[in-house]
């Protein structure tokens, strides 16, 4: 029992990342009808927004500190982050410590801007082209974005720690009455899960309960008719693209402490997220979220040692295997709508 609970928890954080990326992919597909292979790159850029932000915060200048002397009696040179000058040392330390959550303030506008630029500058010209062309051009864009990140940040993973308040692990077992230390779970992953739940809930609420969301949903169902009613649906879809980019971006930024970002992570996540989208059903938002969590949890179950003993290597292929079975038995995916890319 405790082992099962542990695996479910372990699957949650990866599942959250899959779900967030898949949600963005589905939003873009559902609104614009574009298959965006560069979505993993947006996740990557989000993660590096967090890296950049924490680097900006710790930018420092050298000050000669008269109170500290080295062994010759000369005053020491100390690096002081600019942030100390602005807020004082105590507040400055807290801000640097909380760099990752604070970086969301920086990530969201950057990602929305990138999303707008991408949609207006490139994707717009590909609405009428075949899906293969859309896949190919966004695939090229993904390579370019990943290489730009590599040029500025190098090829090595950059560790980006979570705030020290979340550094420890939470002992679930003790809370639920199991032996202590059987089910422990890092706090930051809990935060990530909660964060993902809030974002997903927010996107759904936005689509469900606002006028803007209603128009977008109408546009997803029948773009032409909405256009004939005199609504500028293109503009709204561009905004949705920005939102989808921001969702992928914040997912990446918050994921940075879990997995040190490197320039390849976008592609790794993209391939899996595509599988997630297809399993969930092309164009279905709840399907994407459900499939994201489901596959994340399945993946962690498959890496249990009991399972691995009977089926060696299953943890490496489980997601693809499930995808193949689902695609062949339920052509629409788990929750796909009728008539959306059904061939």
């Amino acid at each position, binding site marked *: 029992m405790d082992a099962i609970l542990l695996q479910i928890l372990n699957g949650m954080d990866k599942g959250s990342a899959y779900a967030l990326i898949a949600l963005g992919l589905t939003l873009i597909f559902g609104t614009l009808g574009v298959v965006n292979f560069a979505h993993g790159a947006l996740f990557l850029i989000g993660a590096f927004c967090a890296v950049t932000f924490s680097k900006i915060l710790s930018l420092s200048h050298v000050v000669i500190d008269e109170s500290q002397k080295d062994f010759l009696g000369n005053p020491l040179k100390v690096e002081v982050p600019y942030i100390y000058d602005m807020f004082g040392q105590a507040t400055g330390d807290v801000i640097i410590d909380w760099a990752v959550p604070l970086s969301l303030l920086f990530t969201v506008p950057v990602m929305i801007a990138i999303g707008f630029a991408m949609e207006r500058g490139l994707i717009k010209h590909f609405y009428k082209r075949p899906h293969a*062309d859309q896949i*190919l051009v966004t*695939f*090229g864009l993904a390579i370019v974005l990943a290489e730009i990140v590599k040029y500025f940040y190098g090829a090595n993973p950059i560790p980006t720690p979570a705030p020290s308040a979340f550094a420890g692990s939470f002992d679930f077992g003790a809370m639920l009455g199991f032996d202590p230390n059987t089910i422990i779970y890092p706090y930051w992953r809990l935060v990530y899960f909660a964060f993902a739940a809030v974002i997903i809930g927010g996107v759904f609420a936005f689509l469900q309960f606002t006028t803007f969301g209603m128009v977008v949903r109408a546009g997803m169902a029948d773009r032409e008719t909405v256009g004939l009613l005199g609504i500028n649906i293109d503009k709204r879809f561009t905004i949705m693209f920005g939102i989808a980019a921001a969702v992928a971006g914040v997912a990446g930024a918050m994921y940075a402490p879990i997995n040190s970002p490197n320039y390849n992570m976008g592609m790794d996540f993209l391939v899996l997220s595509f599988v997630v989208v*297809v399993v969930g059903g092309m164009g279905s938002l709840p399907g994407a979220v459900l499939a994201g969590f489901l596959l994340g949890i399945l993946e962690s179950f498959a890496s249990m040692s009991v399972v691995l003993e009977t089926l060696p290597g299953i943890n490496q292929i489980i997601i*693809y295997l499930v*995808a193949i079975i689902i*695609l*062949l038995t339920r052509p629409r995916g788990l929750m796909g709508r009728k008539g959306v*890319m059904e061939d």
Partner: protein
Amino acid sequence: MFGLNKKDAGLLIVVAILALAAPFILNPFPEGSAMAQFNAGYPDLMQRLVIFGIFAIGFNILFGLTGYLSFGHAAFLGVGSYAAIWMMKLLTMNVIPAIVVSIIIAGLFSLLVGFISLRRSGIYFSILTLAFAQMSYALAYSVLTPITGGETGLQPKYTDPRVLDKALEAGQQPRANLFGLEMNQGFQLEMGNWVFTFNAGYYIAAVVMLVAFYLSIRIFRSPFGMMLRAVKSNQQRMNYTGLNSKPYTLAAFVISGMYAGLAGGLLVAMDTQVGAERMFWTASGEVVLMTILGGAGTLIGPVLGAGFIKYMENIVSKINKSVLEQWFAFMPDGIEDVLVAIIYPFVGKGWHLTLGLLFMLVVIFLPGGLVEGGQRIGKMFRRRDANANSIEADAAEQRKPAAE
């Protein structure tokens, strides 16, 4: 000639001449000159150019004709490589059985994958093939280590059984050969400052490539090729006329899988080692890039694309900062620094960036790839000379009607 019409025979002869004279053509700059690093006339690179040409020709039979975009073709290349290396370990270092078996095994594997994947089309087909390729890669890396060598990969060893070969003497390296002719044999021809390398392995690969190219021309011109084009232009209409498209697409899939297996076998024949990274999905992406860059659905396009990308990979990635500074040394210092700073991110380690940008530009502005670019340039001249019957004109005829 060989059952080809005049144009196709001309194209085949042009490709044959280019392939056989490649050691000269790819080595236009004298040794030791500043431009010598643009020379591509060394055996390793020339072999890669033609082998990936074969890979792309095969991929084009599937993607160019039927429009099914497979994102998992590297798996067949990898399977072919593993089959070839096992033949070399168990049977003989002669390349013939290795290559034949690699084609057969890759064909069988692609039959299995194709049979399942082709039940869907469009993006679902892409995802299915990608899933199969990623599964093969993951398994080759982990569980199948006894067969694939896992992370270290496989090489022929001194102690392997090799039932058909004579036992090697101590200290002798097992080398891939063709009835005694070793792949790395060759001779160098010195003419003034130029050094031309003629390599046995390259010529074997080039001859195989010409055969593969000839077969692909025949497929393009056959009724079977017509059927595949019908699948691309309108599958529904084809079904309504009472034709079942599945056997045709499956046949195309298996043929392109066998081409990939052939390329994998040749890679092993030239450089006797395999690693699982050959099956990673970026490798599948690369063959897609080659085909699109050259021009999908044209005969010559994939070969051009493969040559272009492999050349770039080897040459552009060798340019470093000091080379750039040397080039622009004649300019005033300020301008030199600016130029070096602008170009530097795109060369050396950054060549993937150049590749990505180039690929985007091609997809956006030249959906027909380099061949279409050639046609446009050709058109500018054709007004003057209406009878100029060039390769481009031939390619123009082949260009399929716009998809979907």
